């Protein structure tokens, strides 16, 4: 189900804007003779309160898309929006504010500041912004993620799965409009992966958190509400209500 498919209701209720969208997004790398078009005019929307997976083969531009939409990288042309805010119009201070208030991140690795404890890492965005941490929410998150007994540990004293869960808690603590997760389970064993993905799933279902996750793992994509497929810098397909099998099926088709 996508926003465009929504049946019209009686009164003209203004549609809530998507959590993020890209309009004709182009990103090229390299100089004149060796130009690589990592994004070739991408148009895509990520709905609010949904879990969207972005898939595609290596070099399809899925990470570049995420970086451009999160304001970490500047697109060559086109527009990227978080909510109704066009991020291309923001200066560095504006982007910093955006990252503080409206976006959360989980990466494949190196999510945590090595010198800080897990608890300090989780509250870092709030500390940086000079905000008070919602203690109840904090306790709930660390409880749910099973890292309550790891809070005073440094990252090098935690397992990979615990580190990723702490990163999740940090992304969620500020209740951002949108969480970008870049291969969050890429370095994890299958058990830790499943726990992590289940938690992301629950946070969408229970707290209406919006999540965009880049992955190359079909089983991981199956936790999402919708899968967007990218190839050669373009959206080539999408799948609503995916299962591992249906995702694999699509990937095979794309790969051929």
């Amino acid at each position, binding site marked *: 189900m996508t926003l465009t498919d929504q049946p019209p209701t009686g009164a003209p209720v203004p549609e809530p804007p998507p959590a993020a969208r890209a309009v004709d997004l182009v990103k090229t790398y390299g100089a004149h003779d060796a130009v690589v078009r990592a994004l070739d005019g991408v148009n895509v929307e990520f709905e609010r309160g949904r879990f969207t997976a972005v898939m595609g083969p290596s070099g399809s531009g899925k990470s570049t898309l995420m970086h451009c939409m999160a304001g970490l*990288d500047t697109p060559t042309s086109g527009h990227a929006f978080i909510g109704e805010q066009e991020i291309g119009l923001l200066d560095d201070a504006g982007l910093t504010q955006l990252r503080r208030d409206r976006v959360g991140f989980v990466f494949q690795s*190196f*999510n945590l500041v090595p010198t800080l404890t897990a608890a300090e890492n989780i509250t870092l*965005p709030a500390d*940086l912004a000079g905000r008070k941490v919602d203690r109840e929410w904090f306790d709930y998150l660390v409880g749910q993620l099973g890292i309550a007994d790891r809070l005073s540990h440094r990252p090098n004293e935690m397992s990979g799965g615990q580190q990723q869960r702490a990163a999740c808690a940090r992304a969620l603590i500020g209740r951002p409009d949108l969480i970008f997760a870049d291969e969050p389970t890429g370095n994890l064993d299958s058990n830790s992966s499943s726990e992590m993905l289940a938690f992301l799933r629950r946070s969408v279902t229970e707290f209406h958190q919006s999540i965009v996750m880049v992955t190359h793992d079909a089983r991981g994509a199956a936790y999402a509400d919708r899968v967007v497929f990218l190839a050669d810098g373009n959206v080539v397909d999408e799948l609503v209500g995916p299962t591992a099998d249906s995702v694999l099926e699509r990937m095979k088709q794309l790969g051929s």
Partner: protein
Amino acid sequence: MGRVTLKGLLAHKLRLALTAVAIVLGVTFISGTLVLTDTLHATFTTLFGHAYQNVDFEVRGKAAFTDNSGGGGGAVRKPVPDSILTTVRQIPGVAYAAGTVTGYAQFVAPDGKAITTGGAPTIGLSFDPNPELSALRVVSGHGPTAGNQVAMDAGTATKYHFHVGDRVRVLLIGPPQTFTISGIVTFGSADNLAGATLAAFDLGTAQQILGTPGHFEAIDILTRSGTDKAQVQRAIARTLPSGVEVVTGQTVADEATTSINQALSFFSTALLVFAFISLFVGGFTIFNTFSIIVGQRTRELALLRIVGASRRQVFRSVLIEALLLGLVASLVGLGLGVLAALGLEALLKGFGITLPTGPLVFASRTVIAALAVGIGVTVMSAIGPARRAVRIPPVAALADYRSDQAESSRRRIVIGSVVAVMGIAALIVGLTRPAIQLVGIGAVAVFLGIGMLAPVVARPMSSVIGRPLARLLGIPGRLGRENSMRSPRRTAQTSSALMVGLALVSTIAVFGASLSKSATSSVDEAVSADYIITGSNAGAGGFSASVAAAAAGIPGVSAASTVYNGEFEVQRSLATLTAVSTRRLSETVILRMDAGTGAPALAAGQLLIDSTTATTKHLVVGSVVPVKFAQTGVSTMRVGGIFKPNALLGSYLVGDGFFLAHFDRPLPVAVLLHTGGSTGATTRAVNAGLSAYPNLKIQTRTEFQKSQQAQVNQLLGLVYALLALAVLIALIGIVNTLMLSVFERTHEIGLLRAVGMKRRQVRSMIRSESVILSLFGAVIGVVVGTALGVAFASSLKQQGITDLVVPVGSLVVFVVLAGLLGLAAASWPARRAARLDVLAAIAAD
């Protein structure tokens, strides 16, 4: 964010400590100097305050010259006739008045050697029996009451085991005399006056042997209690002839304190200059360390940016790290500085300079200066790296991010060139003007500019320097060379501190070699005498005026000329006047005339000037210049000749007849003897003939030249010792960088070990890199320093540095030493690298 900074600091205690050492040493130097000079200042203020605390007024000759900047120990004054004392005593309100006399008097130790003080004067003075007036306190025996008695300072008495009743020989302006010690005295509460020896005589004797009979140097006055002091002062002033003044005791104490403080401030300025050099070099190592730290923390800083840190927060975090580091280092330095001051004080005592005991003065200014300078240097040095940290984009946190710095290096070359050129311009202007501050600023700018430009040549130079190492050591040497080449910027930054250190050392080496050569050649060019006799108490006090007469009577001595120095005013500015004997002048002194005549002009009482003075003052032979003497007042002199500049002769020269007519009992600075060659026999004859004067240093011309060179070398040794601190800081910088490099390359070193590199080879790889870094800095430093030294030495040509010498041998030794020091600096990092656990190193992220 503050927590991130703090935790980051605490997580790297070793790095913190190594970086802090540079600042700690510099601040120790500064605070030690300030504490010591403040303490000395307070001590002398108290000392003179006590000495004059009861003296209400002093009557003395007015300062002879308007310009009193030159000379040691204040204004030159004419003595007052003792008839004034009678007049003053009759003025109502005056309770007590007594004349005072001071002059030259040097004790002879029981072993027959003259007692020297290592620079402090040997003072003879009149003893006043009124304890209220006198600064001297009798601690045993009694004051001198007869012409054959002397009171000795407790310092000398203790050191040489003199007791009341002993007989002691005393060297005077006139022939030496023997006295009986009537008592032991202290100056106020101190055993002696800052290392000077004190010989106190009764007033009449003092007038005869120290001063001018019938005259006092000053008259000290006590008023009756309850009188209006200002009124008494006015009454005294009314009775005084012109040229004589009455001032308060407080004024005299203040003047004495001021003149001591001027000497102290010269001393403290010199020490502070070296402290700042150390801190400047320390600044380079801090800059380098922070650059590396920011580089290593790129991902972490980018991650902070991603989770919402603003640019300002990142900038601030780096600066706060520097601030905390600077604060801790400065506090440690401050504490060590107090210990250093205690150490220096002990050292001075070891040299025989006994200071009156007083508590250490720890002024708030010391704390403020130490903290401000220590923190300031650290924070300023971290600004560059902090700006680089700010430019790290958030995407840098992602594993595949690669940055490219081509543009910033172009900008650095432009800025570096501009700074270096401006520095050179400032140096040239500063040296020609001359303006010493401008020279300092210029040198700093040159060093900064060259530090910025060094990365350009770092790659090719490391390649060249490393080639022999690579050939010698095989793979480890080649890897060391590659490591030093792969980051030219870091190589240059790391070695820049050593560059500055060695540049300064080389500057001093060139300057010193030129000075030493000039000293030798100025003796050759100005002295034809075979023997040069000077006082053995270097720099302070002279010897008896009767030496020349005694020497002239020695068989084989064909000419004996006494050389005097004195202050006079010429064309309204203070200058030093040198006098030589006009009889048989050419046998003792060589005058190379540019114009006019030499000996005849001197004999005619005319003034000779050197060509530099002639040029700057626009004087020619026949010019008549206004002069002023303390004793005889205003007059004019005719310029009779112009001679080629020579450091020994000075700028103004007169005959001894003229000199003695205008100066009151001057002390000789040297006696020149002509013997027609110096053989062992003549040397024995001269020594025997002058055995009554144990305070003489009798040297042949060659010996004199050697001792002149030795003096230069002694000074150089001191400067080298002070600069060694800067070099030490530079080396600590290299240790620090290597440690950081080893840490950074853990994975790589693990890999090398895994494929079969031996521990020994790992060590030799790290050592090679260190040697290359050190040699790179040393070579650039020596080149820059030589250029600076040549510039300094040439600019002082008119001041007597006539020869320019580049001591190639010493400079090569410096480079070799730098290489060896580099080897030493590598030992710890190399050991650490060799000890890495192979498995853990490979597993490390």
